[in-house]
């Protein structure tokens, strides 16, 4: 660029004289130099400031924290389909083992992660209920399993405890598909075998049905075996639970049966008839591995406890049908049933009661609840139960009861299972609802992936 007038080129008629050109274009040309210079400087300043802002001020990252509530998945796209609640809090809470209708055993983290199929056992295939339902009713007066699980798996995810289709308690192995019946031929079991935590001791209740006119339990016997199947003891009456350490087992006390006399038979309007039996359980004792016994619940206590919910009950019909040992072996939860009641329990009087038994002192206290349902001890102490009002309640030790959830009457819940560390409780039904025992506002639920078998610790824990 120059201020000199152009010296060459085409000159035409329309071109102004050179002197006039110089005068008219000088300011403009000066401006054309000055403006870009100023503009560059301004641009440098503006760009520099903008760059400094962009580089020097980083906005804090917004992270959605764990959802505390029962709604919303906390913004995290994790967990199984349909999950509701802070599923990430279940990470590391152990593995859940479950079965499917084809008899396959699955495992996954409680948070739904790391799913895999462990194996298949034909006996786990969902079948119709065994024939002879009316006979089964008589057996249910002897023993009623504590929950509705089809099978239970050991922490090694190999041992399977189940009841075969023909009614025998059995233990199987997933790895080799083997199955061993635990009752002699001709005997049936009311449920799967009970076992020590490591499977080193097994306990089985067996019964035989008979009766002249009405079906009745004519013989009840129990076997305690070690892990290899060797018999440790054969006991009269039914066995209800084996301690976690395998050192003891909760069994019927025949002396209390003799004291109470046989349960009379009866035809009922609302359920199948049952015959008289002197084999049903009227009291409990603790069998110890050294061969000794310790009485824990006498028939007088059974009657006393039942009268807290039914003062005028006929004691002749009271039997123990379920008993579960606490994790420390000091307590037991016992379900006592009035077998002579011919009422619809939903609309009629109370026909069963839960009792908490202090095994050392031999004292039993009732835990009154309308239509008591499922119950389970927690490893940390305390226990949980479901009731007729559609509630699940946690009863911690030395603290007031805590509502876990309400409105579960239609959820088809068949088991309450605590997590291995006792921090969570799983209500297993059509959906699985995990509830923090110490803070029930934290709940996670998702559609049930199968039928619950066990909730075991992570390998190596």
């Amino acid at each position, binding site marked *: 660029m120059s201020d000199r007038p152009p010296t060459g080129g085409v000159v035409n008629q329309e071109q102004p004289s050179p002197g006039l050109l110089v005068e008219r274009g000088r300011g403009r040309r000066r401006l054309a130099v000055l403006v870009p210079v100023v503009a560059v400087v301004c641009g440098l300043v503006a760009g520099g400031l903008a760059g400094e802002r*962009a580089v020097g001020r980083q906005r804090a990252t917004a992270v959605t924290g764990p959802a505390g509530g029962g709604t919303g998945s906390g913004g995290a796209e994790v967990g199984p389909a349909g999950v509701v609640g802070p599923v990430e809090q279940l990470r590391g809470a152990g593995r859940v083992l479950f079965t499917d209708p084809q008899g396959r055993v699955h495992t996954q983290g409680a948070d739904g992660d790391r799913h895999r199929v462990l194996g298949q056992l034909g006996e786990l295939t969902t079948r119709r209920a065994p024939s002879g339902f009316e006979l089964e009713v008589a057996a249910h007066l002897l023993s009623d399993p504590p929950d509705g699980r089809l099978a239970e798996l050991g922490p090694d995810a190999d041992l399977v405890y189940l009841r075969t289709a023909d009614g025998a308690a059995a233990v199987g192995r997933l790895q080799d598909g083997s199955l061993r019946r635990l009752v002699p031929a001709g005997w049936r079991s009311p449920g799967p075998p009970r076992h020590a935590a490591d499977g080193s001791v097994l306990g089985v209740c067996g019964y035989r049905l008979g009766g002249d006119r009405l079906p009745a339990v004519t013989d009840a016997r129990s076997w305690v075996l070690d892990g290899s199947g060797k018999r440790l003891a054969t006991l009269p009456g039914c066995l209800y639970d084996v301690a976690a350490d395998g050192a003891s087992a909760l069994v019927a006390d025949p002396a209390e049966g003799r004291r109470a006399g046989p349960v009379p038979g009866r035809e009922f309007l609302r359920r199948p008839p049952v015959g008289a039996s002197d084999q049903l359980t009227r009291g409990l004792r603790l069998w110890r591995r050294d061969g000794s016994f310790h009485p824990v619940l006498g028939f007088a206590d059974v009657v006393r406890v039942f009268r807290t919910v039914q003062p005028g009950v006929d004691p002749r019909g009271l039997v123990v049908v379920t008993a579960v040992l606490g994790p420390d072996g000091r307590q037991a939860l016992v379900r006592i049933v009035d077998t002579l009641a011919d009422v619809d329990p939903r609309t009629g009087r109370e026909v069963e009661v839960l009792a908490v038994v202090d095994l050392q002192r031999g004292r039993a206290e009732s835990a009154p609840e309308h239509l008591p349902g499922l119950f389970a001890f927690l490893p940390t102490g305390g226990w949980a139960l479901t009731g007729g009002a559609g509630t699940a309640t946690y009863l911690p030790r030395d603290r007031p009861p805590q509502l876990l959830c309400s409105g579960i009457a239609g959820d088809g819940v068949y088991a309450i299972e605590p997590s291995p560390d006792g921090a969570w409780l799983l209500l297993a039904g059509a959906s699985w609802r995990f509830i923090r025992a110490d803070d029930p506002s934290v709940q996670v639920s998702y559609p049930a992936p199968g039928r619950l078998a066990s909730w075991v610790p992570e390998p190596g824990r």
Partner: protein
Amino acid sequence: MGRLLGDPEVWDDSPARPRPAARGLAGLATGAVAGLLLAFAVVPRPHPPPPEVRLPPAAEAPKLRVENQVLYSASLGGGPLLVTRSGRLEQVNADGTDRRVLAQDVRARAVVGPDRAGVLVALDSGVVTRVEANGASRQLGPANFLADGLAGAGRQLLACPDPAGQPADGGLLLDAVSGRARPVKLGCPVAWAARAGVFAGAGGPWTRLQGFRRAAAVPRGGSVLVGRPGKPPRVLLEAKRLRRLAGRGAVVDGLALSPDAELVAVSAGRPGGRWQVLVLDRDGRQVTSIPLAGGHRPAWIGWSDRQGSTTLAVAAVDRRGNLATAELAAREGSGYVLAWQPEGGSSRVLASGVPMVAADGFAWSSDGDSVAISSPAGILIVKQADVVYTTASPVTGTLLAWPSGAAP
């Protein structure tokens, strides 16, 4: 070399026209880009700030459900609830509607009424107080009389004395209109048969016992008396028989008369021992005995007033250990409500567990179908039809009664 396109004759060799605006804009852009790049290169990067954790709204602990159908049904048959809340006496429907303050500055522990005119009598901090429909109140009975219990129907009232500084058996029969008082030799607890004009109360021997109130021994009667106004009461259950039925050292802690006075319920036992509710007929014969769960003591016993039949409700609360002397509203323990029917002798558990934590008020509905239980967590309503229906209610406060009619 190729040939240049165009006609050489029209080539314009003149210098480009200076365009200051265009050059300025270009310069500005160039400068901005250069400045930006320079800033990116030169400006030091700060440490990344800690991430901002946004917690979702705090989740609520699970609650008992409000079943509107059950609430509506209970409201239809039951009339309004009488509750005391923040020093006010209020009436409100079970579904929370039609709340009305009946009286201000009344800390009622028990009420009789209201009658058709809306007048009720309340036990207000030991003073028997008549509360008019317009909220005005006046004391009934002697000015120096402090009551610990109140029962009655219509204009007939029975007040039992607060034993502190007064004889334990210095009860008073009061006229709710005139306030005239006549002494009657019985003490707390007292009960009144709603439709029979019969009262009951505790009689001697009186034993001072620890374990009912914190750091205090309170007198409790060892027998049960029944009577009618105008006649001296008679012994229904004498002390020796009470001890035989309820155990050594048993005392009377609660009384309830069925509406027709045909049945008397007596809660009997001793702190630290086993408690039971004895049901006697009008002649004192034992109809049944309802043993309570270990460590539990009755907090309330009451008969429903249902035409043709009646049901006894027993609210038993855990009194083990530190819970023994705790006020009901501060008692962090479990309990249950059992309903027992004289016809057939059958019973059902109406409520248990969480709703009984700190439960401090209990009442039958006037139609005898439902029981309401108040606690700091709210009011629970249990309707026992064929099936037991349970619902939480939006009403808060301490429940005093569930009478049939609303005050006009």
